[in-house]
């Protein structure tokens, strides 16, 4: 193992030596604006294996990579609009942005779900090393898993086994670093939109009657829900009803559902089901007893996840199924709805000053 005292050499020479070591598949300990990092060439499978052995019990901690700028990042990950804004705001700096990987780095660097964290350290030496190397380097912290955060070389060495220590090839010693916290990790891979613009969601128009209404208050939104339910009461008794809701966060989807529940004379408070995915309520209205299921599929991204919710088991007469972020699961649920011949009522909320515009596709009776 070679140790370079950064106070004694120019940054240019250090960067050259570090890049040469990394190119040869070696493991380099380097300083950053947070803690010391353990770096290997992230595109070299043998070097990555070595790093994984060094980290020992990684316990799921991410292996992010350091790049020089957003253009370099785009070679390795898909950067969506939200991620791009985070790059512009926070990088270079102590923030790691997770995106979907492009499968370009060595095995074991991306997560098993194909995601990858990107860092652009606010530490010129690291950027210089990456630039000279021309490849991204891993930027996991240099401590063994579960050990003390490494702010000095002795923090690292005091907690390593002999075997781990023997894996280190080069140490760039910048002395004791300021005790900054580790980088903040922003995971931008959840694809659900935050906002929806008018016309972005297509209503299912086959066998449907289209209307557009305006609401300027929560009470009005609830009243619209009640009127729509009354129109579909016979449908609901005989076949059940699926209500698909779409609209930005805070546009009135849960308020609408509260109106549905009031119509069904449900006494319970209707709370948002975002984290529980599904809430179930019993109802009794004019001697008809049935169920209201309130779903929020905001976090459902794949067909497999959708099937885990077992929505098809809920369909039936006297059953109302309200689904927030309906568009998210539309391709998978439409065939189910068609097969079971349950009527579909779809509502899309968009902004209108003042209030909201509700585009509604009602089942033809």
């Amino acid at each position, binding site marked *: 193992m070679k140790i370079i005292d950064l106070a004694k050499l120019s940054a240019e020479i250090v960067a050259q030596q570090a890049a040469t070591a990394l190119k040869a598949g070696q493991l380099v300990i380097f300083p950053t604006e947070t803690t010391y990092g353990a770096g290997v060439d992230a595109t070299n499978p043998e070097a990555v294996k070595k790093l994984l052995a060094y980290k020992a*019990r*990684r*316990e*799921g*901690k*991410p*292996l*992010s990579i350091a790049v020089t700028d957003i253009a370099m990042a785009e070679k390795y990950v898909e950067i969506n609009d*939200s*991620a791009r*804004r*985070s790059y*512009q*705001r*926070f990088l270079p700096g102590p923030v*790691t*942005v*997770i995106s979907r*990987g492009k499968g370009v780095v060595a095995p*074991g660097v*991306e*997560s*098993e*779900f194909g*995601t*990858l*964290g990107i860092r652009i350290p606010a530490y010129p030496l690291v950027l210089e090393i990456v630039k000279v190397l021309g490849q991204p380097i891993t930027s996991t912290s240099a401590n063994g898993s579960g050990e003390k955060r490494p702010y000095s070389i002795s923090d690292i060495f005091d907690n390593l086994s002999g075997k781990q220590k023997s894996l280190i090839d080069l140490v760039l010693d910048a002395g004791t670093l300021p005790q900054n*916290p580790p980088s*903040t*990790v*922003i*995971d*931008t*891979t*959840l694809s659900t939109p*935050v*906002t929806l613009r008018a016309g972005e969601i297509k209503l299912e128009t086959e066998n449907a009657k289209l209307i557009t209404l305006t609401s300027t208050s929560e009470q009005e939104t609830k009243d619209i829900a009640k009127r729509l339910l009354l129109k579909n009461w016979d449908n609901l008794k005989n076949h059940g009803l699926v209500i698909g809701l779409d609209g*930005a*966060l*805070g546009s009135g989807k*849960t*308020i609408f559902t509260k109106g549905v529940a009031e119509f069904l004379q449900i006494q319970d*408070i209707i*709370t*948002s089901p*975002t*984290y*529980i*995915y*599904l*809430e*179930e*309520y019993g109802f009794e209205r004019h001697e008809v007893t049935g169920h209201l299921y309130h779903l929020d599929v905001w*976090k*459902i*991204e794949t067909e497999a*996840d959708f099937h*885990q*919710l*077992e929505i098809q088991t809920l369909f039936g007469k006297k059953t109302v199924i309200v689904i927030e972020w309906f568009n998210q699961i539309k391709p998978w649920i439409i065939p189910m709805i068609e097969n079971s011949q349950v009527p579909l009522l779809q509502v899309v909320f968009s902004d209108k000053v003042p209030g909201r515009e509700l585009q509604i596709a009602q089942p033809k009776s």
Partner: protein
Amino acid sequence: MSDQLILAIDTSCDETSVAVTRGARFLSNVVASQTQLHKQYGGVFPTVAKLAHRQNIEPTIEAALRKAEVTWKKIQVVAVTQGPGLAPALEVGITKAKELAERYGLPLIPINHIEGHVLSPLALPASSTKLALESAAIRNVLSLVISGKQSEFFLMTEVGHYHHLGGTIDDAAGEALDKVGRMLDLGYPAGPIIEEFGRLGNDRAFEFPLPMTTSGNYNLSFSGLKTFARNKIEALGAEKTLTKTQIYDFSASFQKAIFRSICYKLNKIVQKTEITEVWLGGGVAANMKLRSMLRITLKPYGLKLRVPYSKKLCGDNAAMIGVVAGVQTIQPKSDLEREPRLKLV
């Protein structure tokens, strides 16, 4: 209080968790979405993949036994979350718990997940010399459960006896933080990032209303604050993209608005109710800003805030389920069914 060795399972929602506990102490507490299964994932575990309880349950049980350094021969009780939660998720834990109880001839105890959060401040590490607080000392405790799913006030007259004083009528506090964080491009989950960035921002930079002041009850509402935040973010972003400083300031200000609302109702409750201590549980209990604002609210009353001693005990976990079974006598039930809408009271 019992000194039996309990294997506890929680699959109420996203996390698959198994713990080995005795009394209020836990010997292991494995949460599969976190780290102990040596999965190589990139930072935050994709939320939706967490529904995969069926794949996780076996290895999680093995890991919990291994970490506790016990074998099935030593386990005396199986405890499992019966609800509330997502029906298919609960089903996985309950089916497995039934199977294990039958195979090893052990009593099976159904546990309410919310009671787990309520009693989570009782949980002690394995190294603790005492089994638990003296149950007799627990009288008239005000419990706050603040998470992505719940934002509730309970009065615990004694362990096992609860009254619901109030709670959210729409979004939970953690959910409002996550959703507004998403509007600020902080990804998902955004709540913890709001906390981190909030430390760097000015919490007076943006003004928010204080909701539910005339409701005359102890209920909370966060959906109005969420909509208010959304309108503000859109107005700010209409001219040009929000800057780093604006993101920090907005995080600080919005987080304060949410917690101020909780403190406002807490203050009302404390004025009107005889209580001895205040306990905090649920995922948002890990937030240091919330803890400090609650302590400031309670200080004039000389009341202590008791919190779970580790972050992991705040989020969904099985140790708290084991603790519920360990600190009181609950009738075993071999034919228990999932109860997705189970209430605490």
